[in-house]
């Protein structure tokens, strides 16, 4: 028996392409945001609200990741925003290679703020660097206030957290305060926003922060 030494990172190929994406975005003056959440927490709805608010202020672009259907890309297309849809056919997360290929469809568009809507899943997407500038995790009140403790990696790696569907709190047994505390235990640096897309709560504050964040770079 003999030994072959390797000593390499298992995800080095993903990391190398993520670095390529990062440089590519930087060169084109694009700020990229990776949106993570469970299915149904409101990623696309929040994106629609951000688009309504920011489309005249900054050049937006979207990469949609889904296991099946172009439903999300069609929703975004209605706003006249450049969008590319990735259909993973079962894969539970996006990786840097998928982003590189999807972005080639948007290459000739003028984009300064790119949203990457990951596959709805709080586990697997947290492991893969896509080359984004920041990660934002969305958690809706209906999911319960224990989610940051149950899926710590997504919250640990995020720069900001959006608590969506805050208008439903009167009907639920979950608490925004407990949710916030749990998230801050996992990641004390997390910037937190509260939103409701149906009642138009908190969207202005979120968009203001996004603009400030991008401009202060």
């Amino acid at each position, binding site marked *: 028996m003999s*030994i072959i030494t*390797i000593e390499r990172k298992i995800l080095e*190929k993903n990391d190398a392409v993520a670095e390529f994406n990062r440089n590519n975005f930087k060169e084109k003056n694009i700020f990229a945001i990776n949106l993570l959440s469970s299915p149904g927490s409101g990623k696309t709805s929040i994106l629609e609200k951000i688009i309504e608010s920011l489309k005249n202020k900054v050049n937006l672009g979207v990469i949609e990741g889904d296991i099946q259907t172009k439903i999300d890309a069609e929703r975004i297309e209605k706003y006249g925003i450049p969008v590319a849809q990735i259909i993973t056919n079962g*894969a539970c997360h996006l990786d840097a290679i998928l982003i590189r290929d999807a972005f080639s469809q948007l290459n000739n568009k003028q984009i300064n703020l790119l949203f990457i809507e990951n596959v709805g899943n709080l586990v*697997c997407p947290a*492991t893969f660097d896509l080359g984004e500038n920041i990660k934002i995790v969305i958690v809706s009140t209906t999911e319960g206030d224990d989610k940051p403790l149950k899926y710590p990696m997504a919250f640990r790696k995020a720069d900001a957290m959006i608590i969506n569907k805050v208008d439903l709190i009167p009907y639920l047994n979950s608490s925004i305060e407990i949710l916030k505390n749990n998230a801050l235990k*996992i990641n004390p640096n997390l910037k937190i926003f509260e939103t409701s897309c149906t009642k138009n709560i908190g969207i202005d504050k979120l968009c203001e922060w996004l603009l400030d964040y991008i401009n202060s770079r």
Partner: protein
Amino acid sequence: MHELSIAQEIINISAQYLPPYKNISVKAVKLKIGKMSNVFVDSLNFCFELLSENTPLKNAALKIQIVPVVVKCNDCLMENEITDDLIYCPNCNSFNVEIKCGNELDIEELEIEESQEEAK
């Protein structure tokens, strides 16, 4: 099930190290996996077994060294292992810590056996 992608990468990387002109069977693949790397080892074993079928890694065992999470506190300067999901200094409870290890997802080495027979 991101373990499926990870298992595929283990096979891809290993294949680059196997001399193509010899009859080689891989007995084991040594991995280093950090406790915080979000990998479920049972699931990784299952995916690896499925994907390695019809490759030189068929029947290879994954020998996995689990790396504990160790943080260095920027306030009290102590280095400590942590055992729950909260990343803080167990000595002074500060959250101002630097993660020293626990995020590993590395392929270390292959244990191989060469058959006497030349490959056809």
